[in-house]
């Protein structure tokens, strides 16, 4: 815990105004979760050091951070919840399922290499039934398909070009499950004269952190930060395309996990569209866009909101001529990373997502765009629509498509 950024005044500043209760997506759909006012600062007054944890509802907190943003006193409610969750699970023990869901990075490269078999198994009804009954991974949830070659493998064959360098933290999912997002990113950056560099990287560790595994998350951070630091110190700025990885590395590595060097990394780490927006403001966004007369609906992921950088993707997308863009007025998609895969939480996840689905249905878009892979999975699952990362639309709109 980084004492500098973690004042011990949380219990004192909560004034019980219930703003947080107005925005919590979980307590809105189920009475099983008492809501952020009680789960966070409320319960904190009752947690005595040395007492065993009794917070059996605490892992219903989806970690969306919306309560933090709504709090007029600045109580870091979701962090209080996370620490309580960690303690509860440390005492109760973590099921194998949670370990599997948070350590997919260990098998993802193999899964990609054997993608035909992997994908067959992940879609197979028998396998899904077994996973449901033995591991409590809900069989109604579509499991993401693996691709081969991986993004990194594709990139290795890709001839580098560009004058200035920029580093890319792609994240596990892009690497093995959505390679086209990575490709689109590289192409857009190259069109702007940047050579993309991939520093050595591992899973950022957010799934572990979200499941209260501080130890595991810290290990991932300690693995990642040295190589990221080296990249930064060589004068290269770094970008991420997954808002979840971004939130983890930019804030949680420092604030919750106290990883040395993380502060410096954070200062040179940007969201992809934040980066493009900065270029645009300096007049450095080189590309011209073609007309793209389609209707897109943009969804701001929870982690983007908690990054506190606004909605840079909307700003850049608005540069594309004839593109009709609507910002979807809904908050959390309901997946919550590993949350919505768990059998006991699937229905809550879907109930939360219903509100988002209704908002999308009203807009009737051709495509839905969102920066978070979790949200993309969930929106596909909820609506069956085509869901892309905004960079993919930007790539489509490039006047001179890069190689």
């Amino acid at each position, binding site marked *: 815990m*980084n004492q500098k*950024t973690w004042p011990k005044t949380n219990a004192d500043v909560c004034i019980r*105004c219930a703003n947080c209760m*107005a925005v*919590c997506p979980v307590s809105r759909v189920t*009475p099983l979760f008492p809501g952020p006012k009680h789960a966070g600062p409320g319960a904190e007054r009752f947690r005595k050091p040395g007492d065993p944890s009794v917070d059996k509802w605490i892992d219903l907190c989806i970690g969306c951070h919306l309560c933090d*943003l709504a709090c*007029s006193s600045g109580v870091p409610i979701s962090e209080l919840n996370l620490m309580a969750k960690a303690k509860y699970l440390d005492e109760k023990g973590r099921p194998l399922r949670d370990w599997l869901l948070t350590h997919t990075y260990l098998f993802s490269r193999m899964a990609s290499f054997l993608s035909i078999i992997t994908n067959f198994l992940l879609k197979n009804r028998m396998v899904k039934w077994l996973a449901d009954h033995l591991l409590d991974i809900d069989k109604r949830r579509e499991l993401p398909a693996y691709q081969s070659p991986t993004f990194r493998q594709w990139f290795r064959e890709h001839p580098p070009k560009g004058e200035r360098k920029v580093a890319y933290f792609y994240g596990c999912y892009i690497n093995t499950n959505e390679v086209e997002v990575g490709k689109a990113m590289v192409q857009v950056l190259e069109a702007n004269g940047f050579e993309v560099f991939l520093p050595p990287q591992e899973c950022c560790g957010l799934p572990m952190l979200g499941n209260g595994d501080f130890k595991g998350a810290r290990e991932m951070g300690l693995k990642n930060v040295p190589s990221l630091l080296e990249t930064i110190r060589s004068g290269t700025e770094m970008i991420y395309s997954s808002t979840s990885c971004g939130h983890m590395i930019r804030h949680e590595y420092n604030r919750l996990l106290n990883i040395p060097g993380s502060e410096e990394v954070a200062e040179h780490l940007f969201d992809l569209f934040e980066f493009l927006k900065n270029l645009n*403001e300096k007049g450095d966004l080189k590309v011209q866009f073609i007309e793209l007369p389609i209707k897109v609906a943009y969804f701001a992921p929870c982690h983007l909101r908690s990054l506190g950088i606004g909605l840079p993707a909307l700003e850049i997308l608005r540069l594309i001529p004839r593109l009709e863009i609507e910002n979807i007025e809904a908050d959390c998609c309901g997946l919550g990373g590993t949350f919505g895969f768990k059998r006991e939480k699937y229905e809550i996840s879907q109930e939360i997502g219903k509100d988002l689905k209704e908002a999308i249905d009203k807009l009737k878009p051709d495509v839905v765009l969102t920066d978070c892979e979790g949200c993309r999975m969930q929106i596909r699952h909820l609506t069956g629509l085509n869901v892309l990362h905004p960079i993919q639309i930007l790539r489509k709109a490039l006047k001179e498509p890069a190689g």
Partner: protein
Amino acid sequence: MHYDLIVIGMGLSGLMAAKTAAEMGKKVLIIGKGLGTLSIFSNTIDLLGTIPPTMKMKDGLSQWVHDHPEHPYGKVGLEKIEEALSSFNSFFPPPYTFQSKNDANSLVPTGAGTFRLTYLIPSTMMKGINLKEKKTLIIGFEGYKDFYARRLADLLNCRGITLSLSENPQTEMTAAALARRMEKPSLRDFIGAEVKKEIRDEELIGFPAVLGVNDPMGVRKDIEKKIGASIFEIPGLPPSIPGMRIFNRFKAKLIQKGGNFLSGYSVSKAIPRKNHFEKIEVFHPPVTNSYSADHFILATGRFIGGGLLADRERIVEPLFNLPVSYIGSQEEWFGKSFFAQHSIHGYGILTDASLRPIDENGKPIFENVWVAGTILSGHHCVNEKSREGIEITTGYWAARNAMKL
């Protein structure tokens, strides 16, 4: 990132300022921690609750402006109040509108079984002003612990019943959960059927103010059809669902107009250069982002959001270090009785007529800083019932004045 205007504060005054500037085609950033106090206090638009319903608001307000030159209304003047209100009103086209009855205050029933004089009333609450004249039935919900139909009925001299919505009567339901369920037809069918069974000769049915966040008029219409009587909402303890409706509308429209909406982060520093402010910094551990603008509007409210801070000796405005007009110390700031008018509430930032903060000689302290909302000095918005009126008027005019330059 450079903006024409940066508005600091997520309350109604900040939102109004940002909307006004965005409508003028300006590049706006609105930044604030939390949701302001819309989701806590606001349900109707209080303009000036001291004017009796028998008097036209315009006349009452005109007298007030004349008698209270130091009040925010006194500073801006009557026409300006009307223009700002009109701008707010046009932001809420039918079916969910804010109206007054005969351009005067009306008495609306509250969740404490009292009445409050208020000016602009949203459509879902309007029929409640007839509570005293018509036979009324009030509906509460088991598990929704912030509203008690029986107590309201005892105090308002009408009838009250409590509906049970779940198999487990001990289950709690938050206002947000209830409002969400109201937007599903199944709950409305249930309510319609149950109330129809219970209703005797009542013409008006009162509900807690939870008739949905997104489509309250749709919810109302459907329930009215199912029951066969008029219904209205009664405001209660926070969170305020009607306040959330207002907040959501401002947010959606601002984003649509290209405004940058940064909710949840507090400004940690404002960087001055002589009598001019350049930029603000936002510390979001461990990074600090900075934003610069031509003009800044301080709409950070009073103590709830940290717009003002006080210890036992002093009251300060922590961001721009603007002088706060207070006298005495903690011992004097509060009356002996809870219901007294505490002098502390009248303290705040002194401004000129254009809403620029001034020094003891009456001269503007900064070229490009403006102040809006309840942080201003010279009002007792809680006792006077003038909160939303002050927020709307000064938010609108701070933006207009700043952007004219």
